[in-house]
């Protein structure tokens, strides 16, 4: 079952950017590319020769591998369709967050490795945004931990569903925050615009300006997988774990596609933030996550209002 989960996450990851592209094209009144266009781009990249900058060192070469490996490895931790992930243990979500941070660390220093001012700027922004987004994720997990004594990913979700229906109040806030964390972590609008063509206004894209061939392909796939990873985290909130497996899987795909369409829609209608507004925007996510925490405190009747 866990293997099916990992496979499903990978499949949705592959079609994810395609769906977003389709939605954006339709909304923008253009003819949409094939849903597999991003995939064929990546396959082309895999066949290409890599060009490395002469300024770079081994750090630049190893970073994409670590980044990709970190994303692939955390797939094993995600619960899927009411089942535990392949590996599940107390506090696995801490490992989840920190392993992703390791990948990011390497990508940031790889950008500095090129010695380019633009890439340094992107690296710097990425470091700042992910540091600001991190607390929100932990507060969310903390609010789920209020329902459960055991704090593995699986148990957190499981106890949320076992609890009274009131506990879904926490879920609503959590989903909202998670969608925006996904946008920040994957460098999408309103924090970063992946389609911008000016280096000065890029965040993630400018970091990988010098990557090419195999490495660039890995980086692209890793970002897709990260998107569907967060989609899975969101889907787990919505799926009652009591449903039969096949229904859960179908439901999972529906949620993922909806998530992708939502992202496409958000990107079509939202303008990107001013750079200086971004930190404020991201910190607000933590504030909203605290609301989820307070809600959970009220639901568990630790915090009584009389």
């Amino acid at each position, binding site marked *: 079952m866990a293997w099916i989960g990992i496979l499903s996450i990978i499949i949705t990851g592959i079609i994810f950017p395609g769906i977003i592209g389709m939605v954006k094209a339709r909304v923008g009144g253009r003819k949409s590319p094939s849903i597999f266009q991003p995939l064929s781009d990546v396959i082309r990249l895999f066949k290409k020769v890599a060009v490395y900058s002469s300024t770079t060192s081994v750090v630049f070469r190893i970073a994409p591998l670590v980044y990709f490996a970190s994303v692939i490895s955390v797939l094993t931790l995600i619960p899927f369709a009411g089942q535990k992930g392949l590996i599940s243990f107390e506090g696995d979500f801490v490992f989840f967050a920190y392993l992703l941070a390791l990948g990011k660390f390497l990508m940031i220093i790889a950008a500095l490795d090129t010695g380019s001012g633009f890439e340094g700027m992107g690296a710097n922004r990425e470091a700042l945004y992910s540091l600001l987004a991190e607390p929100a994720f932990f507060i969310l997990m903390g609010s789920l931990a209020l329902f459960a004594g055991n704090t593995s990913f699986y148990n957190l979700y499981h106890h949320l569903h076992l609890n009274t229906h009131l506990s879904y109040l926490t879920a609503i806030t959590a989903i909202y925050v998670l969608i925006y964390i996904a946008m920040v972590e994957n460098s999408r609008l309103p924090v970063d615009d992946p389609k911008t063509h000016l280096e000065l206004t890029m965040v993630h894209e400018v970091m990988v300006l010098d990557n090419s061939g195999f490495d660039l392909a890995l980086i692209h796939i890793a970002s897709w997988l990260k998107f569907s990873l967060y989609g899975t985290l969101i889907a787990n909130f919505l799926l009652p774990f009591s449903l039969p497996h096949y229904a859960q899987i179908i439901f999972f795909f529906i949620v993922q596609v909806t998530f992708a369409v939502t992202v496409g829609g958000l990107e079509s209608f939202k303008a990107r933030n001013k750079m200086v507004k971004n*930190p404020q925007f991201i910190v607000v996510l933590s504030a909203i996550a605290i609301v989820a925490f307070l809600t959970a405190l009220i639901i568990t009747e630790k915090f009584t209002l009389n």
Partner: protein
Amino acid sequence: MEIKVFILAMILGFAIFIVPKKSQYLLGLLLHLVVIVVTSVLAIDALFYAPAGQSQILAYVAGSPVHLVVDELSSFFVLVVNFTMLTGVLYAGGYLKPYLEKKNNGEMALHYFSFLWLHISMLLVCMLRDGFAFLIAWELMSVFSFILVIFESENKQTVKIGLNYLIQMHIGLVLIMSAFIVAWVKTGAVFSFDGLTIYFAGHKPYLLFLLFFAGFGIKAGFIPLHTWLPHAHPAAPSHVSGVMSGVMIKMGIYGILRVLTYIHTDLLYIGIFILGISVFSGVLGVTLAIVQHDIKKLLAYHSIENIGIIGIGIGLGVVGVAENIPVLAVLGFAGGILHVLNHSLFKSLLFYSAGSVYQQTHTRNIDQLGGLIKNMPRTAVFFLLGSLAICGLPPFNGFISEFLIYSGMFRGLFPGDLPTDVIILFSFIGLVIIGGLAIFCFTKVFGIVFLGTPRSPKAMKAHESGGRMIFPQVLAGIVIIVIGLVPAIFLQPLNSIVSLFTGSTPILTNAIPVMNKLSLSSGIFILFVGLLWFLRRSQQKTRQIETGPTWGCGYTGANPALHQYSATSYADNIRDLASEVVQLKKHYNSFGEDEIFPAKRTFETHSSDVFEDNLVKKPSDGLLKWFEKIAVFQTGNLQHYLLYALVFMIFIFLITLLKLI
């Protein structure tokens, strides 16, 4: 037997002054090794075999015996001290080589002797329980570290920093001593740690705890007691900064932990107090670190941050004990105590590799470095290892201790009541922010110092340092990786230390499967990296790899070193967010309206520590001003001084006449 050898080594230390210059280091190394072996035997014995807490007689002073007591807590700290001193003394062999010609026989001997005695005094601090003996060992530790800090005493600034350090350490000493005295006066019990039992049984612990915390906290470097730390660490030679930051400041933690073993009541507020100060120290420490340009000063601020993390663990542990939440108590203490070991490893490693950089480039200003990974690949790898570990990233050791603390917090949320949950909420937000800022800071340091294009000729001319300086880094690196990959083997000994505070519970033993799964996940991750490496190699085998210049968006003509992001620009957006604390000032003059051809300009930034300014500089400046006013009496004129004596006598005569005295 061990004790006798230990004492012999102490006495033989004086022989360093007699032997010729060439063999001073060897003798020092030998004595260090002897001390390490005998005390480690004692410690391992206490930790694993013998019933702990046995006392042995060190010496007789005025007929009464001085006992060495080695329990689990002592033996843990003894082992941590020994390992870091081992790497430190090995590193010193390479680092001090350039100084051998500059410094004379006596200066070198004094340095080696102080290093040995710093080691011995730290061990004694961990093992002595008697109040007087403890205070003497504590004082020796401060004095010898002071001598080590002012090694480069030809630099006036270094001496000034050293004196500042010495004064602050004595304030700490007075606070600790007064705590002992209060306990002694109030109870009349023995003047020792064990005497505290009686005091805490009958009194509220707050006053005494505060005194102890302030005294030990100055050594540990909790904000706002940290002001000596960011100056002393950069001024000292690198092996000394590694040892001071790695283990000496941990003696403050040892003291706090030792005192906590005697307190069994009113723990909640004490826990909240430790937690509050620790979160504060952690977040501010790392924020202040980000704006530093001096690599060793930056690492010093990171020590404050890590003391904060240790304190968060301990504070949570105390709250857990107070609120009777065993899982929070055990995992909090376990994480905090393990972080003591972890920090001693990666921080000494970082100081050693930073020392190698300094030795090669003769600058600590990171804005003048860059691209060192090409000339110093091994040093760069170790610095990267240390950076990843200090950021708490898996699969390295820093992650394990932070993971334990996180598990404690998240598992404590469910059984906790409202106040506990809110406390936990704030502490994990603190810990997450610390982690994020640490990543921000170390991407900056590593990226600016080791990557990109060299920013000055100094950085271009660097060479890899010799094997004698690399070897201790290898040692520390191995332990960092071992703890990161197989943490399960460290839980059992950790359990026996933690049970001193929490009573014996099976929580840590039950965590072994979790640790194994953590190892498994890390293993999978490493496997994937290896697999991808292999895949890419086979993909690239058939194709010719090309190299070219970095994409410069059309501006490729200029000096590539000037194009890069600098440390200042990297830190700029944090400076905006934390402007209240970091107090960064920019000095420049802007362009005039009628200036068509701009002339040459300079741009400077300065950051200052808001606590240092307000707590140390302002009061001491005020005091100095006042002293200067008094100094008008010091005319250097004999007649005036005779007049003062006359005035004094008349004054005495008058008040006697008026029967005032």
